[in-house]
């Protein structure tokens, strides 16, 4: 497989290496996935006789904290990539570790919110409002979990590649970072739409 061009280096006319091109296309498909579900949300809401106000049904402070947590994780994600670019492996480990901690914190807070609803006997089938709330946030949480798995791999066993092939390792981190920023961005849309509007 070493014969495939542009695996590590950028192609001049596109300015991208293969994996970076690939992840952008993947994110485009993700935009369509979440776009479809946001459209479903709009259609449900427009067609509903009564639609609960998010701020009265959901825990806005917890949602706001989660927003801050995720934005912080995006910043540390970027810093960990910058650290690799500056050849500072120690700082990379620290920053990526912080990113993983933020992601775990997000999941903890999310599960507190979920279990609060479940303990009140509120499940997705309650009404279409809760159905779309649980579906959208659940799918987003699945994306976070997927991200955590990859981040942990790059922090732990995957980091060995830094010694053998630092350029590809930095590329990997960049690609995962792009995905992570996207997951963050989805939440930045989800929070106002579900919690505030």
């Amino acid at each position, binding site marked *: 497989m070493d014969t495939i061009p542009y695996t590590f280096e950028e192609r001049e006319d596109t300015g991208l290496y*293969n994996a970076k091109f690939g992840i952008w296309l*993947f994110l485009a498909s993700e935009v369509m996935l979440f776009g*479809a579900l946001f459209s479903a949300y709009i259609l449900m809401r427009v067609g509903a006789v009564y639609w609960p106000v998010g701020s009265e049904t959901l825990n806005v402070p917890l949602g706001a904290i989660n927003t801050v947590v995720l934005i912080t994780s995006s910043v540390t994600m970027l810093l960990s990539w910058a650290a690799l670019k500056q050849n500072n492996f120690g700082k990379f480990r620290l920053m990526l570790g912080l990113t993983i901690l933020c992601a775990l914190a997000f999941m903890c807070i999310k599960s507190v919110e979920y279990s609060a609803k479940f303990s009140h006997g509120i499940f997705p089938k309650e009404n279409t409002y809760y*159905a779309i709330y649980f579906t959208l946030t659940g799918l987003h949480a699945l994306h976070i979990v997927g991200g955590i798995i990859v981040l942990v791999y790059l922090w732990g066993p995957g980091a060995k590649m830094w010694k053998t092939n630092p350029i590809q390792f930095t590329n990997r981190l960049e690609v995962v970072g792009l995905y992570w920023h996207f997951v963050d961005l989805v939440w930045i849309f989800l929070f106002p739409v579900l919690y505030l509007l």
Partner: protein
Amino acid sequence: MSDSHPKLPFWKKYIFSTDHKVIGIQYGITALVFLLFGFGLMMLMRWQLAYPEQPLPLPDILLKLFGDDHTRLPGGIMLPEFYNELGAMHGTIMIFLGVVPLAVGAFGNFVVPLQIGAPDMAFPRLNMASYWLYFVGGCIMLFSFFLPGGAANSGWTAYPPLSVIATQGQTVWLFGMAFLIQSSLLGSINIIVTIFQLRVKGLTFMRLPFFVWAQLITSFLLLLAFPPLLGAAVLQIMDRLAHTSFFIPSGLLVSGQELVEYSGGGSVLLWQHLFWFLAHPEVYVLTLPGMGIVAEIIANNTRKPLWGYKSMVYSVIFLGFMSFIVWAHHMYITGMGTAISSFFQATTMIISIPSIIILTALFISFWGGSIRFNTPMLFAITFLPMFGIGGLTGLPLGIAITDVHLHDTYYVIGHFHYVVAPGTIFALFAGIYFWFPKATGRKMNEFLGHLHFWPSLICMNIIFFPMLVQGLAGVSRRLYDGGIGYEHGQEIFALNELISWGAWFLAIGQIPFIINFFWSMFAGKKVESDNPWNATTLEWQTPTPPPHGNFTKEMVVYRGPYEYSVPGAKDDFTPQSEEHIR
């Protein structure tokens, strides 16, 4: 280049291979098997339509295959539930497991890297994952036949609320679809990145073979149109398993009973919008690769450049964009309103223009050519009028007022089968005959090829043309007795028998192909050069069959894809990698 690769064990070379050519062939053979299987389901249905209430004339051992005597075929007579199961799975298998994997998975994988001079796809391991996701998705679909209540039986469109309250085969169908969607996602990312990143030096976009363009646009459609179906599938899974009410409206009564476990408040139209947002671009996913194959073969066998290559390229790009804003022409009679209908009617009429430009350009390409009528060319030529009938019969369906009469009749079935069966599938056959020598080093037999082509052409028309007539007479496509119970079905009921015999003879007509395919693989006539068709594109500059890594020397492209019969040249073809005209 091939020497630098160590010898791989059998399972790594042929089963879990990362070589795009092996994966392409895996895709191709799996898809052909699924096509045959899906066709088999239809042959069973055709018995019921031609001879309703009569027992299937199959030996007992075969009847036993369909499970307990009373659940599907009591006394050999087909129950409506079984008929619905066959119908839903025929559509699903033909589209998602047959034609698309063959057109994109097999031909896209095998031919695209060769035509752009690449050593492999950009992501070989993702490519392997894509095939195995497809394989698992297919197995899940097949497995669902063995569930209590059978496989999905709500049509390939899976319209709610029926699909939400259907038997558990539907849940398995949704999970199977999720696998297939992921598979096509990985595949389409791979093809797009490969085309953009791995083109060799000198191969500019306007020098790409039209087939590569078709695959590029197709991959963009798969990339962007499939995720909304995944979203819709997630919602339907939620409805079925968590009893949410995305697609269950308030006050829905089923057999006079209210559904107590559902809160209501959902919208059945939501599914239709999300589904057709995928499924209309999907129509172009089914047809564009076929057009690409046909363009290659026509240029090669008319021995002259394609007429209007650039306008074909611009048309295919425009077609790709437009295909995202025509989906609701499948929904004129849902009551979504005349204003919306008018919009989608206008876009539908507009989208027919680029298709007609491509078809016209291909027709004009024949002008003044010295045409070679070999088997691939026969299939490719036939694609044009067959696809033409399919396309033109689509216009009355795209106009809201005529669609009111034709919607959900056999006319619709006739229309889209003309597009896909004698259209795309013929193009795919053409592609198999055309690239077979590159993959195996042997040509397929011409006589058996003719024996395959002529019965297929005749039977296809015997099957699908009467359907247009039935549909105009108003026969609904959903009747499991083929219209005998209908007052206005009486006059055209006899046509059902003709259609059914056409379908069974079509099956017999495929036998020469199957024999040809396997016989030629081992005993076909060996090709004398790497370029047996005297073609210009890069895939014929590799050794035959191409080794791992494809090309033995660095490729550079100096000219357009179809420089046939260049004035002053000694040969009637000048390959793209030829620096000077000889």
